[in-house]
């Protein structure tokens, strides 16, 4: 094997045919057939998906603006990944359990998590403001890939409960290099656990392109672990819905895990602390803009005469209202009391924490004494 020193990638991998990509809606908004996957959606359901896509994009833009204005410490934008998240999120049943990474604001929306609760983490008022059990949507996980093992264990629990639920876990292309992700592949295969691995390959792990992580398409990793892998057009909400639904059904019916690689693109920066102009070309972004996940649904709705201007205007107005409401409630989020530092660390009384808390409270009280 020779290696191109300039790029570090092994030669010989370029000649491979392009991988299969499951697509049901082209970037131009044409409905296309696929031999293995299909969706049967009513006009209202399609309009519902469109509404989801537009609203989560608006929420994301609002959060980005709040960060620029210093109201959030940082934000990880989902821009460009709306279809992957809404398609997979809407494939879930209420009793299924989702384990997100930290960019899954669209899945949170599908799980009825109040968007302002998602902002709590990024504003620094808490580490996660929602009840994971109520929404069947776990806490965000920032240490890359750790949540894949939690989802695998959870799926093992589902197996032991003897019910037809499934777990889905979200992670990115960078995470596929983590040991935990690979351990979870090994584990779920050996246990035949009812789990779906949903990898959003957005092409960039901060500044590192996919070829720094893998010399084969990511979905093909699954084969080596002994379960199916599929690459789906991550900007096609229909295809993401269809592929995820099938994988979840397979999990429920005892067929074990599936790896879904949703081929998509991170249109924005990794987070607001990042500057993508240092490592990627504008032309790449422009090319992906033509594959926008929302525009193609809109085009399809127009062409098929399922929706008119009035509908689109109403959705835009609703999205704007939801965004303004999010902004207002974000600004109203109170800073926690100092003693919240010691809250909920242990379920049971802990003598050391109780002593620290009492001492610090008394210390704070001493300032009040002085100011009197």
């Amino acid at each position, binding site marked *: 094997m020779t290696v191109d020193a300039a790029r570090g990638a092994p030669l010989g991998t370029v000649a491979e045919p392009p991988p299969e990509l499951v697509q049901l809606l082209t970037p131009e908004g044409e409905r296309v057939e696929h031999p293995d996957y299909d969706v049967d959606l009513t006009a209202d359901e399609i309009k519902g998906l469109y509404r989801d896509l537009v609203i989560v994009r608006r929420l994301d833009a609002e959060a980005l603006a709040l960060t620029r204005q210093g109201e959030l410490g940082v934000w990880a934008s989902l821009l460009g990944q709306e279809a992957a998240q809404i398609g997979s999120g809407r494939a879930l049943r209420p009793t299924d359990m989702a384990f997100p990474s930290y960019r899954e604001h669209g899945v949170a929306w599908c799980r009825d998590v109040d968007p302002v609760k998602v902002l709590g983490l990024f504003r620094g008022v808490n580490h996660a403001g929602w009840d994971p059990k109520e929404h069947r949507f776990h806490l965000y*996980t920032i240490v890359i890939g750790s949540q894949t*093992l939690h989802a*695998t264990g959870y799926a093992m629990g589902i197996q032991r*409960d003897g019910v037809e639920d499934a777990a889905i876990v979200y992670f990115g292309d960078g995470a596929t290099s983590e040991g935990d992700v690979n351990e979870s592949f090994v584990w779920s295969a050996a246990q035949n656990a009812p789990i779906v691995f949903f990898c959003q390959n957005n092409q960039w792990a901060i500044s590192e392109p996919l070829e720094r992580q893998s010399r084969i398409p990511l979905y093909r990793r699954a084969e080596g672990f002994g379960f199916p892998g599929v690459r789906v057009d991550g900007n096609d909400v229909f295809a993401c819905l269809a592929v995820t639904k099938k994988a979840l059904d397979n999990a429920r019916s005892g067929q074990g895990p599936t790896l879904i690689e949703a081929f998509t693109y991170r249109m924005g920066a990794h987070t607001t602390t990042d500057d993508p102009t240092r490592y990627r070309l504008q032309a790449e972004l422009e090319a992906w803009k033509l594959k926008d996940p929302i525009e193609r649904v809109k085009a399809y709705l127009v062409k098929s005469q399922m929706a008119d201007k009035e509908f689109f205007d109403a959705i835009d107005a609703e999205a704007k209202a939801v965004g303004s409401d999010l902004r207002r409630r974000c600004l109203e989020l109170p800073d926690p009391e100092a003693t919240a530092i010691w809250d909920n660390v242990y379920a*049971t009384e802990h003598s050391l924490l109780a002593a620290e808390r009492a001492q610090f409270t008394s210390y704070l009280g001493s300032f009040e004494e002085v100011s009197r």
Partner: protein
Amino acid sequence: MSTETLSLSRAMNEGLRKAMENDPKVVVMGEDVGKLGGVFRVTDGLQKDFGENRVIDTPLAESGIVGTAIGLALRGYRPVCEIQFDGFVFPAFNQITSQLAKMRMRSLGTLELPVVIRIPFGGGIGAVEHHSESPEAYFTHTGGLRVVSCSNPSDAYTMIQQAISCPDPVIFFEPKRRYWDKAPVDFDLANAAPFEQAVVAREGTDATLLAYGPMVKTCLEAAQADEDRSIEVVDIRSLNPLDEATVLESVRKTGRCVVVHEAPVFSGYGAELAARITEKAFYHLEAPVLRVGGFSTPYPPSRLEDHYLPDLDRVLDAVDRTFAW
């Protein structure tokens, strides 16, 4: 009959069995815990009696053991993980310290993580490297974890059950060189000390030895051997939270204190004990708190471990030094 003489390994086994009988959500998982019964036989026979769904032979992946245990706990199970040897816990370090320890706090108390991680620890068995370490300070330093260690068969039987019923994650250190020591086990949990309480293992008036796990026996032998002075031995049992009251009461009585553990002295658990005693019992002290433990080196080859590990003579040497002060 409510007492029986058992080895520490067997007492652990009986404790696990009891917990599994009492709660169908308790699952045991780890490498070789099934048919083999664990390399120290702590899980002997459990898979036969409770089945493969509750006694899980896992892939050889420690991060996976703890990570999937977290997932099982989120689904309502009470996993008891076995890490085969102390030196193998580090691949799971992220899952323990960044995930398991913090998850309850991060969820604002909505999630409960009743996970027990059993770790056979310490040296003295002539093992190859990575099989004789004492990593407890890494875990006592991490908020959100409880850290305990049993020193005798009766505590092994009761403390493992207390750990399993505890709603918080517990790192359970087992003194591997004491696995085959036998002693009477009291099966009546009503007689057991509370989970987070230290116990006075031997009463004395002249100096206090503080120890936990394998060093309790060493300290008891040292106290016994000292014919001139009356030495008290406190078994810490719960490292985090620490039962400060029992420790301080003993030190205030004796005025002299030596902390003994196998882990390196520098930045070790004994430093915490010494600092707290100095802060809270300063005027009772006749001498500084001394520490006896491993050296600031990697664990040595086993032919050297007798020099590295505190033994009766090194403990008594430290006791002599506190009296010479």
